Structures are given as C-alpha cells and as structure tokens.
C-alpha cells in the first residue's frame, strides 16, 4: 500500500507551487510554477492508482496485433477491460476532464489495497 504521508507531501508541495509561488510570479516564471504544480499533482495521482492500473493493464489480455487484425472486432468484454484501464490513466492525466461516471471508479477511497 502507498504511504499516505508521502502522498500528502506531494499535495503540499503542489499547493505551495500553485498558491504561494505562482501567485507571486508573472509571465514565463508563473507558467513554469503552474506547470511544475501540475506535474507534481499528476505524479501524485499516478502513484495513488499505480497498483490498480497495473492490475487493469495486466488483465487486458489481448495483443495489439490481434486487435489490428480484427480478431477482437465487437469484443464487448475486451472493450470493457480497455475502458477500465483507460479511465484510470485518464484520471491520472486530467481528472477534471472525466465524466462523473468515469471518475467514480477512480476515486481515492479505493486506493487502499
């Protein structure tokens, strides 16, 4: 299980960059501070879901050559497994862009594993 205190540390660092530093800067420097805050928040989410994402990707069970060759056309079960892994990755990349339905299975309380 991921160390919750380590995740808190990343949260706090991102907040300092975004709220204390970026707010005091302008132009290119402000942009860089916001970018760094965003990168830390992304890394934090990646760590939080990593075990579940690894399991989801391991469960896909189809190689890309077979998909390309049409051997999985209409395979609803595969589509469901792809969707599950994609939701977790999209949550890491940009949680705000997710619909509530896509977001719900990714939420924090399910990290403990």
């Amino acid at each position, binding site marked *: 299980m991921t160390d919750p205190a380590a995740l808190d540390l990343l949260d706090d660092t991102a907040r300092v960059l975004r709220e204390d530093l970026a707010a005091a800067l302008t132009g290119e420097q402000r942009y860089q501070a916001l970018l*760094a805050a965003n990168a830390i928040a992304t890394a934090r989410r990646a760590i939080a879901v990593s075990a579940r994402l690894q399991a989801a990707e391991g469960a896909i069970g189809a190689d890309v050559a077979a998909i*390309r060759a049409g051997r999985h*056309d*209409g395979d609803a079960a*595969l*589509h469901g497994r792809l969707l599950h892994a994609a939701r977790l990755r*999209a949550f*890491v*990349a*940009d949680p705000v862009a997710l619909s509530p339905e896509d977001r719900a299975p990714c939420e924090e309380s399910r990290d403990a594993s």
Partner: protein
Amino acid sequence: MTQLTENPHLDAWLAGVLNAPAARVIAAEKLSGGAIQENWSVTIDAGLDGGAGPRRCVIRRDAPATIAASRSRAQEYALIRAAHEAGVKVPTPLGFCADPQVIGAPFALMALVPGTGYGPRLVRDAQLGGDRAALCRELGRQLARIHAIRPDPRLDAILGDRPADPAAAAVALCRDWLDALGTPRPGLEWALRRAQRDAPPPGGITLTHQDYRTGNFLVDARGLTAILDWEFAAWSDPMSDLGWFCARCWRFSRPDREAGGIGDRADFYAGYIDEGGQDIDPARVAWWELMAHLRWAVIALQQGHRHASGEERSLHLALTGRIADTLELDLLHMTAPRMEVR
C-alpha cells in the same frame, strides 16, 4: 552570424527585398511559442515610408536544434505565398532567404499581423474575435478558399503525389507512428481498428491545411486576422480539415460549441458553402473527427516520447504526452461495440 540587429548581411538582404536603398533592423524581439521554429518580431528602418516610420515584420527561422529540417521552411513559405495569392488571410509573405550564412539558418520574412491566437483563451474570452457567428462563417469561407487553391507546378512538386485513399493512409500513418514509438497501446489500437473498418471510400482530393483549428489562427477585437501554421499542408480529403476543426478535442473548455469551441457548426458550414467549398458529407466529417482524436493522441505520445527518451527534457512535453490518455478514454467511448455477430 545569427543575430538580427547589427547584422550587415541581413540589413543588405532586407534592403533588396523591401526595394529600399538601405535598411536596418533597429529592434528584434522573440515571440512566444514554437519549439521547432523561432519567430522574431523585427522593426526595420528602411527610410522609405514617407514619414510613416519604421516597418514591423516577422522573421521565421528554424530553432538551432532543427536546422536539418530547414527545407520545410522553404516549403512552408511557398504554401503561404500560394494561399496569399488565392485570397486567404495569411501574413503577407515578403521574401525567403535560403542562404544560411545571413542569420545562421534559412528564414522567411512576413508582415507582422496583430492578433491573439492562444486557443484556450480565445474559447474562454468572448470579447476576442468580434461576433462569434460571423467569425465561424469567416473561418468556413477561408477554408473553402484553401480547398480551392490550384498549386502551380513548383508547389505541386513540393506537395508530391495525391494519396489514392486518404482515409486508409491516415489509419496506416497512425499505426506506423505507434509502431515507431514501440509501446503497445491496445486502447488506441481498438479505436484505430474501428476507424479502419468505418473508413469512407476515396472521394475528392484537394489541397488541405491539415492543422486548421482553434489555436492556429489569429483574431483581433473585430475578427479573423490570419491563418497560421502551414507546415503540415498536403493533398487529402477536404472533409479532413472540417473534421479536425470541429473535433471535440479542439473545442477546449467549450465542447458544446461544435465549431472549434467558438460557435455553431452550422455557421462554419454556411461560410464554407457560401464561398464555394466542396460538398459537405456529414458522415465523412464525423469519421475525420474520430480520426482527429487518434492523430492528436499519437502526436501527443510523440511529444511525450521526446521528453522520456531524453531527446528534449521538458515538463511541458511530458504533460502533453499524457493528453493521449484523456483522448484514449474519449476514443473508447466513441467506439463502443455495436450489436453485431462475431
């Protein structure tokens, strides 16, 4: 010599191009954006303006790291010139210097066009670009003009052969790019397979812009001032430009405004038709919208790879790579299995 001020070779070249007895760059300022190209705003005293004062232009050259790609700057310039002659709103092309000795790399000289281009801001700030319905119609009209360009033999040679089947070629190109990246992406493969199965048959082929979207044109308070970023222009299905422009992934914070996050698709189409554009086939445009998500996802992965491979360490590139993950989720929703016999 790479500097733009105090550069006698550049001043002499500018005098020739601007038809002035003498010219001198009195100020140069690097414009934002462009990791592959550098854009400089230059103020030129050519002493010919009858009291109008110095002239402001843009010098566009390859960044130092990418001089090997300099041939594409010449091609881009040829495209902008053809667009200008066809009445498309582009920065007025003033000259191209192929001699790398003048400022360290070949470069294009164009008139400075005022305006804002940053996509997210344009979508957010309704004060920009004037009346939005009028802006959408104007963007449609401009695209129709681009599709009507008949290249001269020189530009034709640059553009190469017309693809026999643009849709199939687009699918194949995405697969080649994914293979070159070397990391399997089954979710993107799923969507690509659907794209392959649903691909429209070959139809009309025109010159296309290939990056016609919000973020790649400039507006001022009244409306459109210039269409930019011509480096990907190529022969293709004209519907590919309409699909790229309307694709959900290029609407930024306003997915409800189907024409590039700016306004209604109907206004964009009306301008296109009004200016004599090609027949709009909604199913074909919809397919190119799916393809737009795929193409953008793979380009995002390529940008992330530039960071991850160590070729160019950059937080911006690293985060851009992750946009592919958001796009992959959208693509899987767009390609859910239909009721069919397996």
